[in-house]
């Protein structure tokens, strides 16, 4: 059932907002530009997070969960997930097949590669080619800047900075195209030469034995970080294990079909029940993604900072405007009180006005923000970001949840500022107000 008083207050509030349209316009503009600024800043940060997430989980094939030996650290050349442990894990993967989309096995390999007179040390990875392509999804299934991705054992791809060191020749332009989240490679085999394209790969096993194998370079890739790229190589898991004379693995990546949280819990329970000395870590907590965590941590500090400064300015401006409105409408307040409106109702009246102008301001700000984000995303402005080897696009992710939280913060600040200003006026007596 409708409350006639609520209707009256709402009508009065809208009429007042229109009557004092210049004040309302000021509040609307401040709220609008405040929302635009904060939402866009947060949207930009979200996009940076998306780029990193895409880089690690999809492009680098980390999936969502990494399983590795307990106390594994960067110094382990040969992983430590033994054959028996792998068999046990295979049982789990078969049982939980419905919740796992892809399983990729990895082995760290380092050593030396020689092309005739040229040689270089390398750091690299051996992995399951087929499931690796699956985890990279359509966007990054083609991960070669020149040549093509790995397809079969006996093949290697090199980091393009390393390829340059080894006097390989290739077209370093025209391999990128815009995609949903930054850029992706054009899935087309581009020519390159690295001598005869046959390299001699040599490694030292954990027994101190030197082993080598002739392998064919089928493509060049970009790892994302130039210093890593300078010594980077990838090969099939069979080749890695054969070279290092081991059946062990460094880690296993899992991509969940549904909830990765549930899958992580299931893996941990399985490891505990079977007393396997392995740990399962979500990708964003793993040591390899330290850069992601640090970047996002820093951006979150910036976000809080921006939010505090901008909502502070918006709050002060709204408070000033409301103080002025209330002091100008002192007599109106006195009149309303003398005809029976109590303080609560007057407060509601101003509150409704404040909500009305805030909603209008936030709506205008939302429309402007969407337009701004659309233009920024379409422009495809590239800039150098930290230690990434390729420039990244300046883009904004105008996510709805960010809009809702920003609007709630700004709306809250505006309402608190308005109420503070009105409460002050209501402390006066009716006569004081009317005079």
């Amino acid at each position: 059932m409708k409350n006639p008083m609520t209707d009256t207050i709402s009508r009065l509030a809208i009429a007042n907002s229109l009557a004092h349209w210049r004040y309302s316009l000021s509040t609307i503009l401040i709220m609008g530009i405040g929302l635009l600024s904060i939402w866009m800043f947060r949207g930009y940060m979200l996009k940076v997070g998306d780029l990193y997430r895409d880089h690690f989980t999809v492009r680098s094939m980390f999936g969502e969960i990494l399983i590795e030996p307990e106390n594994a650290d960067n110094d382990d050349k040969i992983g430590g997930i033994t054959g028996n442990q792998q068999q046990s894990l295979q049982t789990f993967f078969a049982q939980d097949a419905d919740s796992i989309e892809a399983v990729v096995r990895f082995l760290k390999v380092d050593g030396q590669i020689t092309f005739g007179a040229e040689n270089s040390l390398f750091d690299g990875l051996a992995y399951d080619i087929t499931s690796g392509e699956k985890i990279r999804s359509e966007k990054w299934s083609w991960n070669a800047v020149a040549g093509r991705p790995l397809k079969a054992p006996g093949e290697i791809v090199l980091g393009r900075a390393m390829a340059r060191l080894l006097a390989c020749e290739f077209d370093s332009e025209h391999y990128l195209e815009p995609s949903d989240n930054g850029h992706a490679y054009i899935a087309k085999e581009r020519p390159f030469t690295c001598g005869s394209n046959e390299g001699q790969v040599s490694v030292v096993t954990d027994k101190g034995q030197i082993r080598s194998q002739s392998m064919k370079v089928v493509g060049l890739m970009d790892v994302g970080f130039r210093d890593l790229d300078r010594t980077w190589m990838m090969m099939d898991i069979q080749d890695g294990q054969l070279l290092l004379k081991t059946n062990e693995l460094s880690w296993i990546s899992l991509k969940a079909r549904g909830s990765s949280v549930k899958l992580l819990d299931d893996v941990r329970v399985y490891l505990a029940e079977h007393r396997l000395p392995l740990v399962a870590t979500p990708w964003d907590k793993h040591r390899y993604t330290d850069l992601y965590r640090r970047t996002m941590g820093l951006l979150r500090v910036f976000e809080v900072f921006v939010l505090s400064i901008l909502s502070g300015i918006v709050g002060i401006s709204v408070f000033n405007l409301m103080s002025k409105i209330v002091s100008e409408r002192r007599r109106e307040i006195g009149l309303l009180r003398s005809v029976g409106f109590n303080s609560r109702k007057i407060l509601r009246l101003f509150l409704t006005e404040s909500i009305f102008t805030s909603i209008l301001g936030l709506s205008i700000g939302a429309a402007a923000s969407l337009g701004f984000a659309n233009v920024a995303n379409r422009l495809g402005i590239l800039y150098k970001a930290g230690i990434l080897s390729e420039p990244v696009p300046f883009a904004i992710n105008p996510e709805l949840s960010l809009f809702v939280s920003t609007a709630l913060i700004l709306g809250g600040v505006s309402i608190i500022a308005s109420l503070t200003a009105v409460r002050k006026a209501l402390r006066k007596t009716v006569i004081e107000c009317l005079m």
Partner: protein
Amino acid sequence: MKRFFWLLRLASLNLLRNSKRNLITGIALASSFSGILLFTGYVVWVEKYLRANTVFVNQSGHLLISRPNGLEDQLTKPRTALLKKDEQEKIEAMLKGDADVLAVGKGLQSMMMIIKDCRSRGVIAIGRDEGIDRLSLGQPDVLKWDYELLKPEQIPVLAKFRQVSPKEAAVFPSPILQKFIDRKTSSKQAGCEESANGSLQLLGRTTTGEVAATDGRALGTQSTGLAILDERVIYMPVKDLQTFIETDSVGYYTVYVKSLLALPSVWKRLHEDVKASGLDLQIQPFFSENVGLYYIGSVGFLGTIAAFFVLLVSSVVGLSLFSLFSMSVTERSMEIGLLAALGFPAKIVIWLFEIEAVLLCLLSLGTGLLVAIGLGDLIFKQNIRFSPPGIAGDTHFTIAWEPWVMVVIGLTFLLVSYVSIRIVTVLKLKRSALSLLQDAGTL
């Protein structure tokens, strides 16, 4: 001038008359100004940290002289990429006597395996110039921003080591690689004897492609200051690295200038000298992508965020000021009408309001500046440790001040205030004196 002081006095009185509203406006201005200063202060610190790190700690110099692509090619094609003795003499002659040059250093890089017991790891060895190490210890920029990376104790340690073990190579691994060296041999590596503490073997290739091998000893850790480099870099004295790869050549020369302002002229002179000498050399500054990738990448990234932030805050501040000044001027419509009726030209009335706005802005900026400096000092004294992306380990959270950055931001605020008040007063003064006198001061 007399009129100006009279207007200044009047403006000050007006500011005091509307003290409450002006105080609130001032707080908004001061807090946003100090916020922007603190934000940009962080970016300035990153710039100074990475500059000192690139130039002195990692010994890339303000200018780096090498063969074209020599910085990279020295790792795989040392025979052709390194600078021979006669070329070194010519380069040294070019730089000798340049009053703007503080020092000249030599650098060399090589790929090698470090072997500890049966474990091996591929690394890039960077040859450090001991003279530059000593010089860095006295550099104000290094002492102020990168002091945590300095290891002055390593100089006497190295001198003593040379006397005791002249045949071993001195190695200064990063903390991460030191962990690899310190790790005990595991049981599955049975048959691998554990070597004496810190002792290791270095395996690589000489400049002629022969196998190079020697004993080395880790004398202490030296971080590059950058996480991704710490994974794969060891430092060695240039002389030890030259002995190891059997050469008297160097990979590059580094030039350190006395003042950054002199960098363009030194660069230009050097470029001309190189051209005249007929040597095929490349001169790159520390802010080029090949030399200072982390420097330009990180500063560019933070600079983009800072520019975006300043743009957003300035637009919100501008709009708020416009709205606050509109209110303030409208309230004083009658006063403007009275001044106009008394014969004050519109120009003088506009000046009065402009002086008020500028005065309020200057007072707020002054307060904001003091607050920012105070907070920056407090933050420094709290010794807060934090881990920014890209930097190895953690570091002391510091805010740095760059006067020109502060002035530019201050001027932006002043301009925004000036433009806001100018638009408002000019619009208001388009009305007649009578109409202004009848104005109730409502918008």
